[in-house]
Every structure is written in C-alpha cells, then in structure tokens.
C-alpha cells in the first residue's frame, strides 16, 4: 500500500465506503435484474460457448475435448464460406438500398403537407409490422419467375423478369427487394431527424446562394448524420443475422432441402442447422464465435468511419 499516494488512497476509501451507503445498496437492488440476467444469459453463455467450441458435444453423448479442430473445420467447410459470402453480399446490397430509398422517401414526405404525411407514413409502416415469416412465404409466390406477380407486372412494361425464386443469381436481389418493402421503419427515423434540422440553417444557406443540392449536401446530410449512422449500424447487424425470410421461404422441411441450392443459405441459417438439426453443438459454437467476431470487427470499422462523417451537435 505504500506506493499508493495519499490522494489516491482517499479515493479508494471513498469508493469502498460508497458501497456501504444505503443508496448504493438500493441502486444495486434496482440493477439486480439486469446483473443477474447479464451473468446468466450473457457472460456465462459466452464462456460456455467458447468451451463448447473446443468439444464435439451433441447433447446426447458426453463431450470430448477436440482442441481447435472445430475451428480448422470452419476454414475447410465450403458451406461456411458460401453462407458467409451470401450474408455479406446480401448485407452489402440491403443496407445501402434501405438507406437510400428510406432517405428519398423521407425527403419526399418532408415536402408534402402535414396531413398527407400521416397517411403515407402509415402505408409505408404497414409492412414493418408484418411478421418476416409471412414475408418469406409471400416471396415464393410473388417472385415466382413464371407466374408470380412481380414478373407479370414487369411484363406489362415489356421486361422479361428473371427467375427470382429459382435462379441462384437472383435469389438474393429478390430477398433484398422483399426486405426493402419493410423500409418504413427507417423512413420514420429519417423523417424525425429531418424535422429536427433547424429551419434557419436552410434560410441562411439560401441567402448565401446555395443550390438545392448544396443545401442537401451541406446542411441536411450533416444534420441527420447521427440518424444515418444509427440505421447504418443497426441495419448492418440485422443484415448479418438475416434468418426469418430466407428460412421461411427455402428451408425447414425435408422436401425443401431437396432443392436447396445454397443461394439463400445465410450464416445464421447454417448455424441453426448445425446446432439444432444435427446437434453439432460444438461446431455450431465455433460458428457462433466466428459470427460474433465478424460483427465486432465490422461494427468497429463503422464506428471509426463515423468519427469522420458524423456531425455531433455541440462539438
């Protein structure tokens, strides 16, 4: 203790006595649900999952320690590669698509009268409350290349549509389009952000002779960059964990497995199959850790990017 400076010592002391105070006890009482939940449902499972990933556990027989072999198999498994690539391709199409279309719609909504905003907002939001499993079921019908609604509509304008539901090249773009149907949530976020942009900034810009594009580029975008960044991260994480629509449309029954071309095999679907259809819990735990790391890395990159592009009020 001799190395502790007097000042530091008193800080530690106050920190320790802080714990004895009634208020502190009460505070931890209030926090206890979360602390227990964190320990039981997050911390312990993360450690357990790391341990499991070093075994061949299948919940039916005792586990054997297998070292890093699950991780080695991850590198060799062609389906891991395919599902990871599918997931990244989907996310790379879906996230910018969602952001651009949502922003365009929000900008349009911000320009029309207040009464009609409510109506359109309702219409755009309806698909958001539609369970994704129904979206996946609808996908197969609407996007059938021969008789589906989408291609029938396209043929009205003379376009011979692709085989959305069966051509592996078009399955992911089709799923992205289906996902864009539920763009309404992001529209509402952007609309709220647009309303918060102070009017006088636009007036000042107009007086300075800024064109409409310049006002958008120099005023609107920086002022809503917080909302853009928020949706960027949220949509990316959601994209990397895509499951419901693709699973509902293409997986789940023995008969659907017969025709699986892996074009809609997303990472979480493969993880789910390994974990619960084959009970390869050790291998699936290794897969879960890989996904966790991928998400952490991508989010970290996004946060770094945000430091350059996001404007924070009062900084």
């Amino acid at each position, binding site marked *: 203790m001799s190395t502790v400076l007097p000042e530091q010592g008193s800080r530690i002391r106050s920190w320790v006595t802080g714990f004895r105070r009634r208020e502190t006890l009460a*505070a931890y009482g209030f926090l206890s649900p979360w602390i227990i939940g964190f320990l*039981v449902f*997050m911390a312990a499972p993360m450690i357990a999952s790391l341990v*499991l990933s070093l075994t061949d556990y299948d919940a039916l027989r005792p586990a054997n320690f297998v070292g890093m072999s699950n991780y080695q198999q991850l590198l060799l498994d062609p389906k891991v590669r395919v599902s990871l690539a599918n997931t990244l391709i989907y996310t790379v199409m879906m996230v910018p698509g969602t952001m651009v279309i949502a922003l365009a719609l929000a900008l*349009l909504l911000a*320009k*029309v009268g207040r009464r009609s905003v409510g109506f359109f907002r309702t219409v755009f939001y309806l698909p958001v409350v539609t369970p994704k499993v*129904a979206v996946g079921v609808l996908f197969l*019908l609407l996007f059938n290349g021969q008789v589906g609604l989408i291609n029938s509509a396209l043929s009205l304008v003379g376009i011979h549509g692709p085989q959305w539901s069966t051509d592996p090249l078009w399955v992911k773009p089709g799923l992205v389009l289906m996902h864009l149907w539920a763009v309404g949530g992001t529209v509402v976020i952007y609309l709220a952000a647009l309303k918060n942009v102070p009017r006088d900034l636009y007036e000042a810009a107009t007086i300075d002779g800024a064109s409409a594009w310049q006002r958008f580029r120099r005023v609107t975008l920086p002022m809503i960059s917080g909302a853009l960044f928020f949706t960027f991260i949220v949509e990316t994480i959601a994209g990397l964990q895509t499951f419901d629509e693709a699973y509902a449309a293409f997986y789940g029954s023995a008969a659907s497995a017969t025709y699986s071309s892996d074009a809609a095999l997303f990472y979480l679907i493969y993880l789910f199959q390994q*974990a619960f259809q084959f009970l390869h819990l050790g291998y699936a735990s290794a897969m879960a850790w890989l996904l966790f790391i991928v998400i952490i890395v991508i989010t970290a990159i996004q946060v770094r990017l945000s430091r350059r592009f996001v404007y924070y009020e009062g900084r």
Partner: protein
Amino acid sequence: MSAKRDRILFWVILTAVSVLFVYPFLWLISASLKPRDQVFDNVLIPTTWAPGNYVSIWQVAPVLSWFVNSVVVAIAAALTVTVASAVVAFGFAYFRFPGRNALFGLVLATMMLPGAATMIPVYLIWNSVGLATTQVPLWAANLFGSAFYIFLLRQFFLGLPRELFEAARIDGASYWTLFWRIAVPLCRPALIVVAIFELKASWSDLLKPLIYLRDPALYTLPRGLKAISDQFGQAGEQRWEIVLAGSVVTIVPMIVIFFLAQRHFVEGIATQARKG
C-alpha cells in the same frame, strides 16, 4: 413559383410508391380468397370466391390455440421486459453510486452482442432445467430487462426534474415509492412504447419458437405458419390457398394493433433515432 408544381409531383410519386407498398397486401388477401388453381392468376378481384379457405385452415391446423399462444407469449414478453427494464433504467438514472458508469457501459456494450452468439448455451440452460420444450424460454429472459430498452427508458427518467424526487424523499418516501409512484406514471408514454415494441418483436419471432417449441399445440402463429407452409406449400401438398389464409391470419392481428397504437409505434421509432 414551381413550389406548388413540385408538391403535386411529390404527391404523385408518393402515391405511386404507396400503391407498391399496399399492393402485396391486397394481392395476398385476394389470393387467399381464391380456389387453389386460381391463386396465381394475379387478378385482384377473384373470379371464383373461396372464403371456405378460412374454414379449411381451422380444420387442418389448431390456428386458434396458436393465436392464443402468440397472445400469451407476446403479453408475457412485453410486460416482463417493460417492468424489468424500467426498474433497471431507474437504478441507472436516479442513483449515484460507485461502478455506475462502468456498468452502464457494459449495458451499452451488450446491445452489440448478437443473439446468435449465446443461442446454444442458453438452449442448454433451459434444457437442463427441463423447460426447453415449453414456451417459457420465449419470454423468461425478459424478466431481466433488455439493454436497448434500459437505455431508452433511462433517457426518459433523466429528463424528469430531480426536485420532484428530492421533495418526496424529504416526506419519507422509499426508493421504491419514488420509482412506482413518481417515475413510472410520468414516463407512461415511454413505457407504452417499449411494451409495444416488444409485443411486435415477440409476435414476429420465428427463431426462438423454432428452437424451443416441439408440440404443435404450443406453437405461436409464426411457427405455425412455417409448419403450414412446410406441409401445404411448395415442398408439400401445394395447397397454396391454405398457406395464404394462414399468412393473413398471422399478419392481421399485428396490423390491427398497429392501427390502434400507431402513434406509439411512430413515436417509439422516432425516439430511437434521436436518442441513438
């Protein structure tokens, strides 16, 4: 100037987009009322009406119990997460205590934790206590609150004037009273937002019911719809009219709730952005 013309143009574009957004619903409802061989005819008004599809679906699947299950699970999930998150959020908002910032940082960090990362051990936990094939795992983790809602509610609680609480303390109110009698009533709109969000999330969830529910009598509607689509859809008997009627039954309750609570949905999402 051209402002008025612009506005009309915007209106036209938005109307066109709205048609795009609504048409799939109309198509779905219309197709669910057609006989099997006309499902794909893409005509909005069915040539032959087949409302019997909605009778067939009650006959082939226990849709009513699925509906009840969905309601029970969604309400349990929404109530537990709202109460628990509010308790924890109040803890973070009101008290000054050692470790607060570190713990709150931890709460924020867990928002980034993908559910998939803990999916397997959590399943093993429920399995070890014999609850892995019940509906309990679908909502029971909500008893401990959820990071995002804690974050959201904390912001609301921080917005309450502190003097209110100090006055009550002087009058001898307990911390619990401060929470139940002052904080909660004043933040009711925020609590409703949280409850409705969780209601929607729980109603739509497919992954957890897939993992946990085995007995078809316990299925929720999304899990049931998946079962219907496996049996009667593309890979099965190709009775599309049944699948479509099942989809309508799964979608409609959420749409009704949306119209009833529209204001809260929109407010909730907008707050996400501001606080985010």
